């Protein structure tokens, strides 16, 4: 057991703690020039399985109305026609201007390699792991991207919000914060707290980060405005991205619409739309123009409505792409159809391309990362195929 500390030793230690804190990547912001790339990537995980067929409705498919029943709105039921074939769910109407500006696009009938059991937890884990299966995989694909990019520092990537973001977990340092946390203590107590937790690296590191972030947040929040959590998260992410951060990842929950889908998906889509608009509106001038946001979900949902006015876990789904760097105004993907024999296991939208291929092409365009690294290190075993042209 260590000998009791004297005052003097304590003061010496305090200096040491101060030093270790100053060496934290958070207080030594990297310069723009030092960053290997200058574009911004935002990854949103839509947890629960978004019903892509409801968000972007293939009303031009002759089987759509019959298969979906009351869920099929189409332009006649209040959805907004996008291109004569697909229509946007009414709750996403605030995004129409973004679509018209060519800064919003959709990719239909995509999925991860996940098949069969249709479990949220597995589906999300695989989506975030970015691998064909989960055996032995501990990190996420965004983290592996940081691992292969030169000079990416701990401030380059941010996981925002209370949800654990597996997609960003791994060997590369990432920052993490929920905008509602704060740490207001006297300097003396903070120093003692650093001392007490020093022997526990995980606890100590989390505390050091919290200390700095809460100072930033408190300075920002003097106006005392209160907004909803998803808006706070998007706003915090946009602010970090306006500075040295290059990558941000967060979650939007509430997509598991087993029951009364019109109400439940309406709420979720409204949150998605507010999130995208907050990102756009909060980013400093010029940053949105070099930003790509991709929103992905663990799987789509059943084509047919279930007995409770909702839909169950499915396979093929929808990816959403937004931002000034996106070549939007289009619905990408190979449409498999909804007719007899078109469905996956006679129940789900047939996935026609791996969603990871689209993410990989976005990352390639934003960071210049070479294809070999993307297909081996970031998404092991992926065949990226042809460039779908998602980025300007």
């Amino acid at each position: 057991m260590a000998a009791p500390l004297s005052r003097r030793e304590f003061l010496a230690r305090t200096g040491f703690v101060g030093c270790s804190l100053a060496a934290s990547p958070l207080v030594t912001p990297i310069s723009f020039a030092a960053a290997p790339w200058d574009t911004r990537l935002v990854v949103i995980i839509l947890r629960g399985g978004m019903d892509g067929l409801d968000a972007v409705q293939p009303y031009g498919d002759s089987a759509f109305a019959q298969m979906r029943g009351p869920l099929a709105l189409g332009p006649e039921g209040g959805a907004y026609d996008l291109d004569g074939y697909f229509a946007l769910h009414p709750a996403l109407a605030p995004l129409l201007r973004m679509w018209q500006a060519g800064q919003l696009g959709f990719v239909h009938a995509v999925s991860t390699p996940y098949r069969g059991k249709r479990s949220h937890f597995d589906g999300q884990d695989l989506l975030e792991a970015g691998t064909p299966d989960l055996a032995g995989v501990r990190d996420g694909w965004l983290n592996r991207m940081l691992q292969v990019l030169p000079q990416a520092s701990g401030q380059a990537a941010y996981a925002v919000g209370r949800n654990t973001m597996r997609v960003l977990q791994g060997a590369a340092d990432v920052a993490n914060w929920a905008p509602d946390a704060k740490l207001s203590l006297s300097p003396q107590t903070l120093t003692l707290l650093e001392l007490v937790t020093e022997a526990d690296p995980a606890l100590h590191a989390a505390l050091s980060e919290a200390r700095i972030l809460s100072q930033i947040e408190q300075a920002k929040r003097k106006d005392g405005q209160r907004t909803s959590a998803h808006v706070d998260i998007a706003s915090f992410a946009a602010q970090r991205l306006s500075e040295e951060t290059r990558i941000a990842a967060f979650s939007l929950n509430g997509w598991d619409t087993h029951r009364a889908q019109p109400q439940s998906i309406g709420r979720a889509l409204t949150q998605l739309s507010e999130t995208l608009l907050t990102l756009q509106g909060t980013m400093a001038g010029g940053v949105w123009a070099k930003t790509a946001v991709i929103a992905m979900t663990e799987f789509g949902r059943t084509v047919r409505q279930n007995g409770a006015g909702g839909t169950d876990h499915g396979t093929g789904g929808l990816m959403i792409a937004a931002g000034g760097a996106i070549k939007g105004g289009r619905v990408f993907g190979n449409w498999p159809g909804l007719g007899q024999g078109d469905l996956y296991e006679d129940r789900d939208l047939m996935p026609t391309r791996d969603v990871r291929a689209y993410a990989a092409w976005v990352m390639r365009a934003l960071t210049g990362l070479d294809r070999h690294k993307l297909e081996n290190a970031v998404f092991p075993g992926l065949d990226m195929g042809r460039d779908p042209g998602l980025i300007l």
Partner: protein
Amino acid sequence: MHNFDPDLAEIRFGYGLSPVLAPPQGVDELLAGLAGPDRIQQRFPIESFSQFRMRMVAAQKQHQIRRENRGTELAQKARKQQRVVNREARVAMIGWLGQTMLRRTHTPSAFRERLVAFWADHFTALGKQGVIRRATSPYIEEAIRPFVASRFADLLQATVMHPLMLDYLDQHKSIGPNSARAAKLGASAVRGVNENLAREVLELHTLGVEGPYSQTDVTQLAELFTGLSFGAPNGFVFRKDFAEPGAETVMGVSYGTDASVQPIRDVLNNLAMHPATARHLARKLAVHFTSDTPDPSLIDALEAAYLAHDGHLAPVYQALLEHPAAWDPVLSNVKLPIDFVSSTLRALAVPKDHFQGRKEKWFRRWLGTPLAQMGQVWERPQGPDGWAESDAAWITPQGVAHRVMWAMAAPPNLVRGLPDPRMFVDKALGRFANETVRFAAASADNRPEAIGLVLMSPAFQRR
């Protein structure tokens, strides 16, 4: 040979040290605490689900009055009454958080409370809409608590067929496509089998996601489950008219053609005794009680005990407590927020009367809201897989920041007169106290922050 350690027993297998309760003196004492009358439950009662159902009946009655008297004054009165029922349930629920905390604070057999929490998490269930959203504690009281030391199969049946689970995973809405009900509804009405419960039973409750089942097993089990339902007045019911006729085959076993609850009990019993279930539960217990990366020989020992004793749980706990890995003196797992809060209350020996007469707002301010901020909304995990076990999920800047703020601010509001921080170090940490924490506790410029520093020390945050 294992190295039993009384302080470690309280910290790792209980809710930490108490200044007024002696820690258990051996494995026998820990196990004995699981048997016998449930005194702490009697001392701090929580409504059972069958009592809770009366709230659902009351809500339903008002709902019916509203429906039958639309636009009238009667309907308006009923609406008001409905709100009263809802509010009362909400207030009751936060009170049960208080009771749960008091049980953990005052029980001499904290291992029992830990097991209740472990299985309540394994069988996570929460109501979806209306007053039933408040029913998780009553469900635990009825479907988990009595069975924590019996056969796993009993626990499985009690939970999977419980109204709250049926509601949570939409089972009561699942109608066999060839059932009498489907025929009555006709082709125009939407109908379908809901796979939610069947999938979670295989993936989460029994075999585990690595288990040897296929989508066909999920679908067949879902068809077998059709008919499981409930009503507010009587609780669980089997609705023959919802049941899909014909036999179903799950994991290679065919289950009878009669539409009744017996084949469902049979399939649950068989799933409980499947080797994959033994492995899955063994691993989960090992992770929960020891570390994110448990000793493989501990998992093997638990699995073997489960299989050797026909899925009886007490011998599995005994195998856990008699394994050397259980007594590794290095504290590993980070306490979840609810456990951090519980063990703080135990370390402070928060008296029963301190909670008496408190309003809902008080419970929210000092317990409910801080828990949510630390990342754990009371009885509201994100999904049926319950709360994350990994330390990384909890040791985040925002989670830790909220732990700190609560540790510094809450204790003066939880007891009248804080203990002397220098004594508190040893009372709260036992033989895991060290000079750094003693120094910090003695150096803080005020008592609440000194207590908070002790609570934030790694020896209190981990177990």
